[in-house]
């Protein structure tokens, strides 16, 4: 009996468009389009291209993982819609990951603090917290705080002005990152978290903000 290897298609459009095929912790292929304004144009070719690059057919994908945000809504929804429909098209489980989590995991991985580093005896590393922030428009930021060992989100995700965030952080030592979200790490976060990934809904953090507008007059 052959067990089909797990091949995850990871899609995130919380910033630009990033799509990756990951199997057994290895990236088979990845495509990133930096622009945060062209998700609808890019998403189709991005998925098609990673499949072609990895020489994998759509039928061989076993799981779809979507970045849930938080992120500016219009772009975020393109990736979520695509992930939902790819999963529906191939009858695959659809999992969700907080996009900020992927940024944190990437930072730890690329800065020598892997989430599961056996034998690490670095108390400093374990106690250091990482702040991940992304642009939330309206002069606010989306943010969350992480620890490396074991990898976990300690606070957030939430949305605040930078000033408010400073108050929330207070005096505690905090590391920041310039890492960007990537499909590879969307998949890797999914592999680490348990049932939390069953939720693939969008994270908006704000209600639609629509407020009934008062009528407008003709005169005056």
């Amino acid at each position, binding site marked *: 009996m052959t067990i089909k290897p797990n091949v995850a298609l990871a899609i995130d459009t919380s910033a630009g468009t990033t799509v990756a095929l990951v199997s057994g912790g290895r990236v088979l292929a990845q495509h990133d389009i930096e622009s945060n304004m*062209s*998700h*609808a*144009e890019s*998403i*189709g*070719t991005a*998925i*098609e291209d990673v*499949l072609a690059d990895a020489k994998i*057919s*759509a039928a061989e994908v076993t799981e779809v993982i979507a970045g849930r945000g938080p992120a500016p*809504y*219009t772009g975020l*929804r*393109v*990736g*979520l*819609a*695509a*992930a*939902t*429909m*790819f999963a*529906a*098209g*191939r*009858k695959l489980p659809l999992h969700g990951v907080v996009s900020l989590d992927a940024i944190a995991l990437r930072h730890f991985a690329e800065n020598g603090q892997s989430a599961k580093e056996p034998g690490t005896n670095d108390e400093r590393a374990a106690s250091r917290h990482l702040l991940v922030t992304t642009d939330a428009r309206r002069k606010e930021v989306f943010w969350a705080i992480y620890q490396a060992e074991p990898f976990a989100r300690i606070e957030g995700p939430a949305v605040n002005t930078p000033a408010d965030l400073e108050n929330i952080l207070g005096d505690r030592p905090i590391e920041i990152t310039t890492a960007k979200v990537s499909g590879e790490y969307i998949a890797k976060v999914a592999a680490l978290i348990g049932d939390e990934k069953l939720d693939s809904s*969008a994270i*908006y953090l704000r209600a*639609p*903000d*629509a*407020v*009934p*507008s008062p*009528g407008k*007059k*003709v*005169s005056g």
Partner: protein
Amino acid sequence: MPAEIKLRQASVHDLAAIMQIERECFVRDAWSEQNMLDELAAPHTFYLVAEMGERIVGYAGLSNLAGSAQADIQTIAVSPDSRGLGIGRKIMFALTAEAKARGAREILLEVRADNTVAQKLYRVFGFKQIGIRKKYYQPDGVDAFVMKTELPKKQPIVLGIESSCDETGVGIVRGNELLANVISSSMDQHARFGGVVPEIAARAHLEALQSTLDKALTEAGISLGDIDAIAVTNGPGLAGALMVGIGAAKALAVALDKPIYAVNHLVGHVGVDLLERGALETPTIALLVSGGHTSLLLVNDLLDDVNLLGETIDDAAGEAFDKVARVLSLPYPGGPQIDKAAATGNPKAIRFPRGLSLPKDMAEHRYDFSFSGLKTAVARHVELAASRGEEINIADVAASFREAVVDVLVTKAIDACLEHKVPRLLLGGGVIANARLREVAAERCAKHGIELRIPALSLCTDNGAMIAALGAQLMMAGRAGSGLAFGADSTLPVTQVQSR
């Protein structure tokens, strides 16, 4: 009222009735009674008669040798006193269905060169002239045009996704046959805001995708593996909302490894008639009226020749209804509310302006619409009364406003038909639900001898079936898919039926 027309297979007992019509129609080149009898009795032919009540008013015959890919229409004749009742068209549907059922791949026929009426009918059914037989019809010495149509081997099953406004539509068609039409609307969520809120609409689209798709597949009784292509609206409409449908459709197309067709929402509204009648008779004028669109189109060819004659230069008619409803303190959506209020009102009570209808507007804006002045006039009327402490007769205002909208819509549409000599008017868009609009359109079309087409309401409002139908038409016409690079275009022009 004329009796209903029924078709049935002909038998030799119908010979006398058939011969009477044969001689009436084909005065000088009629078949002999023996010829006709041989035809009726032959094993490889299929003859039918059209009956109105007890009387046979038409007949036709198809020939197809067993196993042959070619079928021939031997003859079609309709009694001279029963023309113009659509009998010819009914007969054509039956003959083409029979040809398909027999496994034919193409149908041929001959028609007199001077019989333009018949030629037009055949063209509607996809026949094209492929040759001439000189002086074929004797003793008149009239040429015969040889015409042919090809029957597609398989009608493609296309799934269409529509998300240009506040309705998530997933529709499935098999060629021109409607298999499923499922709509999920977020209208209730917009009610308190007096109109569609793009953010709410887009969120709702994302949430509705999965369930709407599942319902459509169940309704159609097909599985994803049966789908031959995906179609999706890429414009015009709300950008954020469109993007959800586009992301969904592209991913589905890649997942199923099938082509994707990005199509125009407005042209979709025109093409929906195909699902009800199997053929779109062109040229036709199309009046599309909804919350977001008010457009007058001249359609010569659904896929290749759609022209914008005019559109609103400010508010769409549906939007005008919403705005005026607000002015009158009626809830959203405005259309049905104004209708309700207008029921007891006098449409002639106040003469509100009909936008862009003055002589000075005809040069540049003959077929354009403007509801801004009308909306302002209503608002002024109400404010003036309020400032004077007078009571407003809401029923009269509503009825008079509605009359002004309907008047200008129908007047310009009829004008377009007459000016362009196109005796066909097709209505589409959600505002067609307005009974007064349908009523006035029917009245005035009848007066001018214009054929009026109003598809079922479920197909007039935004829906996925119309998108699937347009995609299927493109596919059946042999057009390549759109590729995966297209984006959302909130102002996509009607001349661009498919985008790449």
